[in-house]
């Protein structure tokens, strides 16, 4: 069976030894101890396991690790440089857009990807864009608010959130 021995995660080359048909979710959590990546369902229904692969959101529970070799993977741990927050992380804190927080890392990465392709989304666009993400605590309206807040600030600064 083909093996994966190297991945580019959060800007760093990580060495490992994994079957290429294992899920990216398991490799990130269990082999690389990046436990900010969350398991929620294992079937792509909740998006708690979302990571960015070459900038696009990917459900890591459905992604075979063999398909992402050589691609740039970003998990919540690598979204912002150490000791700093990404504007979307800041906005989630400010809007109190979480309760238990289990969905939050995937939600934030989903939001970052959404804002990259649609810098000034309407509420309806946010709801559609993130409808694959489940927040069981029901903080959806606050998440929408957080994303709008991040978008507004980015527009003011003339940068992408």
């Amino acid at each position, binding site marked *: 069976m083909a093996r994966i021995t190297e991945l580019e995660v959060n800007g760093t080359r990580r060495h490992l030894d994994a079957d290429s048909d294992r899920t990216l979710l398991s490799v990130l959590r269990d082999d690389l101890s990046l436990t*900010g990546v969350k398991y929620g369902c294992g079937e792509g*229904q909740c998006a708690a396991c979302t990571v960015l692969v070459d900038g696009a959101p990917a459900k890591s529970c459905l992604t075979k690790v063999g398909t992402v070799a050589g691609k740039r993977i970003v998990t919540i*741990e690598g979204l912002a440089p150490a000791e700093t*927050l990404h504007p979307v992380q800041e906005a989630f804190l400010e809007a109190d857009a979480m309760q238990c*927080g*289990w969905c939050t890392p995937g939600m934030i990465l989903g939001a970052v990807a959404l804002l990259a392709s649609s810098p000034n989304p309407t509420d309806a666009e946010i709801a559609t864009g993130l409808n694959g*993400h489940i927040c069981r*605590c*029901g903080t959806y*309206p606050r998440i929408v608010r957080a994303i709008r807040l991040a978008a507004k600030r980015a527009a003011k600064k003339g940068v992408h959130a």
Partner: protein
Amino acid sequence: MTRREFFARVGGGVVVILVPDELSAQESGRGMNQRMPEQVSAWLHIAEDGSVTVYTGKVEMGQNARSSLTQAAAEELHAPVASIRLIMGDTALTPFDMGTSGSGTTPNMWPQIRKAAAAAREMLIDLASQKWAVDRATITVADGKVRAGNRSAGFGDLTHGEKLARAIPVGLALTPADQWKVAGKPIEKVNGRAIVTGAHAYAYDIQRPGMLYAKVLYPPSFGARLAALDSAAAEAIPGVKVVRQKISGQREAGADLVAALAPDPASAEKALAALHAEWAPAAGQPSSKDVFAYLKRTAQSAASPHLDLAPYTIAYIAHVPLEPRGAVAEWSADGKLMVWTGSQRPFGVRSELAAEFGIPEESVHVIVPDTGSGYGGKHQGDAAVEAAVLAKAAGKPVKRNWTRTEELTWAYFRPGGLVEAGGKVNPDGTLAAWEFHNYNSGPSALQTPYRVAEKYEQYHRTQSPLRQGSYRALAATANHFVRESVMDDLAHGASIDPLEFRFKNLDNQRLRDVLTAAAERFGWKNRKRAPGRGFGLAAGTEKGSYIATCAEIAVDGGAVKVVRVVEAFECGAIVNPEHLANQVEGAVAMGIGGALFEHVDFADGKILSNRLGRYRVPRFADMPVIESVLLDRKDLPSAGAGETPIVGVAPAIANAIFDATGQRIRSLPLVPNGLPALSAARAPA
């Protein structure tokens, strides 16, 4: 940990305040929900460097207890929020606690921590008074400093290396709510930064050196027993160990615990798939289609109705905590057990583990990291017991994380229920008689808050075809759904506006106040009737708090969309308005699932809704505009808010559907497959 052990453990140069348990057993009765008085101790320790640590057996699972309890300590200590650290839900470090449930943290633990902090503050003033030889009255405490004239000291500077202890004095005055400076205000979620950066390690995330991953073989249906097992192929996989153990405690999946263990999860998974098991199925296992007849048939008490009653049904639903049950267990060489798990009852799980192995509770250490939600669903130690049994057999730490399918199958559910209810109205619009029988859901909020002379209200115990347990607000959701649906029917039957009808029959001023507030914000009196639009309201009280919910829905063909929900809530003095609003809005969002579509589907002892693809929960697209109106009663003690805000959602929506269509739907969920065959949307009145 006992008080004495705690005192011995903390270092010198500290102030220790111990809360005597005897003083705290004052929980008032809660009608049908009355439980044993809870032991609610909290300990507080100020180190020489001035840092403050508060110890409580409560746990954080999204309800923001960590934030509110931190505010409680900061308020009375007159110290910055950032200077206070909470140790929660750790059986080796915190005082005993019955569990985090029943909206109990705010009414019970919150005042205890305030008292501990106030006593500590007074003690610091005593110390400063002695040290500086000044009158107590000239000393102030603010921003984590003790000051008198031009003298100033940090909290840690006054103890001089001594270890000082004090019990909370009787009659200690707490700061009234209208003078709060930290409490009653929004603060950023404590630990929120660790959540948005992914740094927080939940129980599911814990890793230990040498740890094995466990995958467990579960029966194909309830009651099935293992007849034969061939594990040769599984054990041929490198690194894999197959363990077969008996569980002595109650276990839904049976006493046989069979698991594949491996140093990596992939090998464990492969080994599980390679196990060849033969099962002997159990006959007569339940199905959802005949569940309500089953509940009635197995009732332990009979009803002899006095009025015409309509039957209502409430489906079993699942909690679906996004972090599934999970545990890591590790045994030490001297026979002590350490377990990390997500649970609402760390000390209850400790008892389960001690009983399973016949060891003293002191030999078991349960740690509950802030948890990925519970909603009443994480009271039992299933995953913890599995992990500990397997770790003992393997002689290594074992991680046992449940899958979503295991979570949706083998956890317990919110009880299904059958309710038969009805009422009679006098010509003047007052209630003449009321009757209400609940089979199986439970007694919470069974009693009507409305004024009625003649009433018959009874909860009937039955057998349950599925494992059942507590769920956010317990039976208050079922009982409010039915009561407020019947009230709506009675209002329409008497041709009285539903809001007016409730006011006419309601004496409780707090309940009247939330109804008024919700109706005003919603614009109930000026609501614009239109085809395919419906408006409904509901109100109620539970666990010392008051709720009124107004809903607007749109009907399009068979589809029901909740457009707007306004919810007014009053739970005494508000502890943190932002976090309270979050709870209220979140309860509305979650309540929409149980109201519209959530239900556990089962047949012949198998759960069919065993994946998220088969069990629908609310998503962004299901969200209405949600507005919360929070009434702040600074003159009243603070009650909890984690549960009651969910109870008005289903009846408000049901009443709105009736308003739009003339259809009275008497089952939860209301429209799992869209509206039942619909003639035409009723023309507006």
